[in-house]
């Protein structure tokens, strides 16, 4: 037998009280467990909701290894953009650009263009890394889903407009070293140029492989790609390119 100490008596009394309270209602209020939210700021309560309330399936395995908890943990850019609601003041924007620039890793052997035909498929595919009630197959290549937000091949009518049109991107800019470098960086981590942009960081987040990025870049820049059907004479000058 364990001797009754102060703590045991307290716990027993609390349990008895909780039992009485439980009898008074048909269902024990869920809020009686855990901390009192009314003592929290909305920001603290939101974090509690994400990580402590059981609202999300945090223990579910994810395609990249580990579990879904890491999907919910914010890195610095995610946090800063959330806090400033995607409108960072100048000093925060400068910090984001600096973090983004430092994050970019380049392929060994330089930035090469891959196969635009494979890029065309990847630009249309929205597959990959979804978890929850249904899980995407990790063995199937993830797509960049470019058409969700950008116009590319002018014959593809199902394009979104959250981002700018990329039709004739290579036609207007060529395929030189500086263009390839910029396009690679925009796909890898676009916050290096547009702090708090809506565009995902396909490289930093390991969403697209180096190879997939090279195919999508070819789709954008290759003169043979349907993204570059050509322009009317003088259009480049009118657009300042």
């Amino acid at each position, binding site marked *: 037998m364990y001797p009754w100490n102060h703590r045991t008596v307290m716990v027993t009394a609390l349990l008895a009280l909780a039992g009485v309270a439980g009898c008074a*209602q*048909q*269902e024990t*209020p*869920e*809020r*009686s467990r855990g901390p009192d*939210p*009314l003592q*929290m700021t*909305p*920001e603290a*309560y*939101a974090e509690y*909701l*994400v990580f402590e*309330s*059981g*609202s*999300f*399936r*945090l223990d*579910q395995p994810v395609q*990249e290894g580990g579990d*879904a*908890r890491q*999907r*919910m*943990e*914010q890195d610095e*850019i*995610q946090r800063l*953009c*959330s806090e400033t*609601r*995607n409108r960072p003041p100048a000093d925060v924007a400068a910090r984001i650009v600096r973090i983004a620039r430092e994050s970019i890793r380049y392929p060994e052997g330089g930035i090469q263009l891959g196969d635009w035909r494979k890029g065309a498929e990847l630009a249309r595919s929205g597959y990959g*890394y*979804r*978890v*929850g*009630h*249904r899980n995407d197959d990790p063995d199937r290549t993830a797509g960049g889903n470019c*058409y*969700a*937000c950008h116009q590319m091949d002018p014959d593809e*009518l*199902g*394009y*979104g*407009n*959250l981002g700018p049109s990329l039709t004739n991107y290579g036609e207007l800019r060529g395929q030189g070293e500086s263009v390839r470098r910029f396009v690679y960086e925009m796909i890898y981590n676009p916050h290096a140029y547009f702090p708090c942009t*809506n565009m*995902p*960081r396909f490289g930093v*987040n*390991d*969403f697209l492989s180096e190879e997939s990025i090279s195919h999508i870049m070819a789709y954008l820049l290759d003169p043979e790609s349907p993204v570059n059907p050509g322009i009317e004479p003088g259009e480049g000058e009118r657009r300042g390119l």
Partner: protein
Amino acid sequence: MLRRLLWYSILLSGLACVPAAASDSPYLTKRQQLMMLAESNPAELTLWKGEELFHEKRGPKNASLEACDFGLGPGVLEGAYVQMPRYFEDAGRVMDLESRIIYCMKTLQGFTEEDAPIARKHSSTTHTADLVALYTYIASQSDGMKWDPPMDHPMERLTRDAGEVLFYRRAGKMDFGCVSCHSEQRKRIRLSYLPSVHQPAEWAKAISWPAYRIGHGVVRSSQHRVRGCYWQMRQAGLNFGSEASIAILSFWTDQARGHVATLPDLKR
């Protein structure tokens, strides 16, 4: 066939003076065809099933849901849904309509979480979930009314405010938050116009769930919508009726305040 043709010709002739045509919201006007079809919304079948289920004596306690309090008193359905989510003293938490129906199925009818009427949260093309049917019927009793979620209880306000934080919270493998798709008017994903949280008229239509989703062939709920958003965002799976889901619903309903609900709605 003739009757249907007649209907279409009446609808077409009336098209020029449909009020939404005056709107400059592409989310509303580009869905003109949907509004035409809404005359025969298949969600009505789900609604009728829900009406029967609501009055039927069911479960271990052999009781109907007629005594369920959706916030305006036991059995009062008219206008109840547009005034949710709401804090319920008996449950000690903020609930949306779907959570409240489950609460009453447990307390009044004696069903448990494992029983099919509660366990089955969503419909398939071959089976309409009881929960969806009940939700459609009860929500339809607020059709045409203005969204007006209560903000009297401190938990209602905190839940709404945390929902706003979650709306802007970017995370996951694509850095998305709700804000990524729903903060600007005239934006599309592929061909679908997106509703903006800052445009109350289109937002009020957008949050009008239940809706028959043409692409799914069944009626879907707000819980189904918000789950799909988190899935597409590549964040963690969102649990049905969870506190976080209700926080988001609380914020999104508050953003539609004062604007008319279409219940049930018809969506792409």
